[in-house]
């Protein structure tokens, strides 16, 4: 808004519009547009571009199994960004993320499932229909729940959203036509784009390559959308509410509207992530949407870095890659067994590591992986005079 007003050009001493950048001075901004830009330094532009290129190149470089893991990580990253919007940016602690993920997963599965199958199905396998639908249904549920958030704060809100997970768990276990019931489950959503099944090997690549590319593209779309939301008026309102809701109300931020919006957008992300997540393995069981899933999302946000989109992505990658990395331990550390019937095995090591890492991060680097990155960046910024 500020930019548009300046570009209308009233006071002569404020530079208008997109003025030229000064060479060799990356941190000198000569207009509001530069200051507010998504990628505000040339270094960021180059490195982000490279990162995206490398990420797409991985589709032809990595093994199918690794691509499958990364595709899952990208979907979880979409979910983590969603949680970061409501918990990180708007400061409303939510333990109910698994509930919204479940709504998305089942909306997508029901829409794309075969109409004559064992479970509810409408035969709409096109991704561009069921994905927004999954998001919207979850968002509607989020908006329904949001009035609670406007009346509650902090720990009370956390406990109420925790209740959502248990409510959801019960509903999804009992609603057998939709979910197949506990211990049975159902086929997940079918990813089909303009008639091309993405969960089958085809002329365009293997199943894993197709899914990887799809998830990466969607992650970029969702991440850019979240970044844009965060640096808009809405994002600033979220931050104001997070930092002190009474003060925000006093300066004219409508609390109810923005809290409802935060829950709605966050649930939309969760719903989309839910719809996509289970297309990779192709099967979904109602027991998956428990408190542990919510906690995992919180861990991604905490380990990655609160209120940063790149942090949420890093956290999701970290949590998802922890498992395959520990699974490869038996090849390197001979006394750890890959066989579940022996002790110590990788699965035990994995459980221990998971808890240990959360504890260590919260103690030594509360800003998460994003904080680590800031440290590394600052070290090299002042190099060779850093100490």
């Amino acid at each position, binding site marked *: 808004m500020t930019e548009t007003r300046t570009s209308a050009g009233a006071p002569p001493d404020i530079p208008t519009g997109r003025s030229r950048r000064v060479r060799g001075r990356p941190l000198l901004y000569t207009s509001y547009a530069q200051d507010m830009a998504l990628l505000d330094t040339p270094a960021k532009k180059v490195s982000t571009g490279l990162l995206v290129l490398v990420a797409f190149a991985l589709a032809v470089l990595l093994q199918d199994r690794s691509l499958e893991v990364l595709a899952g990580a990208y979907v979880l990253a979409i979910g983590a960004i969603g949680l970061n919007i409501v918990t990180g940016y708007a400061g409303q602690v939510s333990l109910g993320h698994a509930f919204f993920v479940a709504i998305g997963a089942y909306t997508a599965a029901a829409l794309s499932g075969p109409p004559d199958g064992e479970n509810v199905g409408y035969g709409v396998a096109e991704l561009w229909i069921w994905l927004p639908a999954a998001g919207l249904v979850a968002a509607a549920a989020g908006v329904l729940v949001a009035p609670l958030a406007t009346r509650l704060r902090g720990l009370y809100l956390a406990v109420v959203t925790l209740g959502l997970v248990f409510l959801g768990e019960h509903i999804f276990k009992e609603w057998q036509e939709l979910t197949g019931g506990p211990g049975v489950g159902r086929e997940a959503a079918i990813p089909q784009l303009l008639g091309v099944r993405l969960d089958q090997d085809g002329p365009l690549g293997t199943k894993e390559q197709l899914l990887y590319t799809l998830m990466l593209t969607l992650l970029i779309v969702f991440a850019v959308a979240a970044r844009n939301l965060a640096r808009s008026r809405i994002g600033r309102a979220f931050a104001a509410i997070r930092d002190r809701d009474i003060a925000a109300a006093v300066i004219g931020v409508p609390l109810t509207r923005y809290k409802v919006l935060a829950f709605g957008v966050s649930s939309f992300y969760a719903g989309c992530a839910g719809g996509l997540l289970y297309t990779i393995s192709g099967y979904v069981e109602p027991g998956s949407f428990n408190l542990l899933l919510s906690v995992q999302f919180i861990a991604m946000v905490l380990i990655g870095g609160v209120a940063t989109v790149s942090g949420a992505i890093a956290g999701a990658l970290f949590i998802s890659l922890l498992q395959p990395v520990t699974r490869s331990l038996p090849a*390197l550390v001979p006394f750890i067994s890959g066989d*579940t019937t022996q002790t110590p095995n990788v699965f035990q090591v994995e459980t221990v590591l998971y808890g240990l890492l959360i504890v260590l991060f919260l103690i030594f680097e509360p800003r998460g992986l994003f904080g680590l990155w800031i440290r590394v960046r600052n070290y090299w910024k002042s190099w060779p005079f850093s100490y």
Partner: protein
Amino acid sequence: MKSRYAVTVVAIAALLSACGVFRGDDQGSGGGPAAQAPGVTTEPCPSAVDRNKGCIYLGTISDLTSGPFAALAVPITDAQKAFWARVNKAGGIGGKYEVDVTRYVKDNKYNPEVHRQVYNEIKDQVLGLAQTLGSPTTAAIIGDLKANNVVSAPASWTSAWEFEDVIVETGSNYCVEAMNSVDYAVDTYQVKSVMAVHLAGDYGADAAAGAKAAAERSGLTFTHVETPTGATEQGRAITEITKNKPDLVILTTGPADAATIVGQSAAAGYKGRFIGTGPTWNPALLQSPAAPALKALYEQSAPGKPWDADTPGHKAMREALPGVTPNDGYTSGWAWAYPMKAALDAMVAGGNVSRSGLLAAVKTLKTVDYEGMLPAEAGNFADPSAVFRQTLINKVDDKATTGVTMVKDFFTGPTAQAYTFDGPCFSKL
């Protein structure tokens, strides 16, 4: 500081190359250029007896840690390792291959979603599955098994497997087992009402459907209660039993669930009979608080004879597993491996060592040599309409090695005899 980064980079690079992350080094099948078909190599097995033989890799997906059948699944898996070790020692498959069932062992936690995930992890590395535990879990991968001709030995007895070519099942299904149990109870205890207490899905619902068919034939009143897994989740089932007081309860749950149901129903004054399907029993239940109630009220129906039966197969199993605590998980696991061995033998003899060759070999099997553990006609895979219909009844006996002794040898009840299998039983519940 700089050296620390260097060390990190080197470590990450080493780790990535160690797990074979990069595309192209051994994409697809398990053995690089030496591979012939998925899961078949000319290289010897990792723990080969004879290093001149090739290797056939079979996957195992079982309930190894936290699921309701872990107490049975670990012995099943161990018995199958011993079974294939014995096969390898005796010259392998057709003198050309040995079989490895130790490299691809995965835990499904008795969860269909996890089952599908771990199956995706190993499916390109194995020729077939030596074990896929559970009915609803295997149902989650059956589409892929059929699409890729992955011949699999189930660790479950649902009637759906009678209609799947890729599944080489052993022994009677739960549906037949429950029919025979109800017929047995009608003869022995003159029961007038039956309640089936069962888990959801193909396992529990299959037995309940069998009990329903037998009850309808004998004019008994029939009710059924679905119950979740977990010893603390059985409240509703116990209330239904003590409220309705059926003469006979057919149980299809996990062992811990069964003990809770029997123990607490008896404590609440229930005096009827319980007959549980094979997987409801675990000798450890004799140490549980429910032991007296189990001894008084419970019998186990089973698709095969218990641990200390006197057949060459049982004897070979006991010799191959010295020093283990006897458990009929071992017995079932051992017996389940015979049809797979017969199919592999036929495949290698036929010369087409591949997934389609194995499936074709399965379809030629008219009998399987179970070394006396089961009648040879139980292994008829050539005739899709052939359904093996004999089960037996065990009673709890704390002097027996696995806590049960046989009270009725292999028999076919009148219901099972007359029943026409035209689809999975559980769809008719």
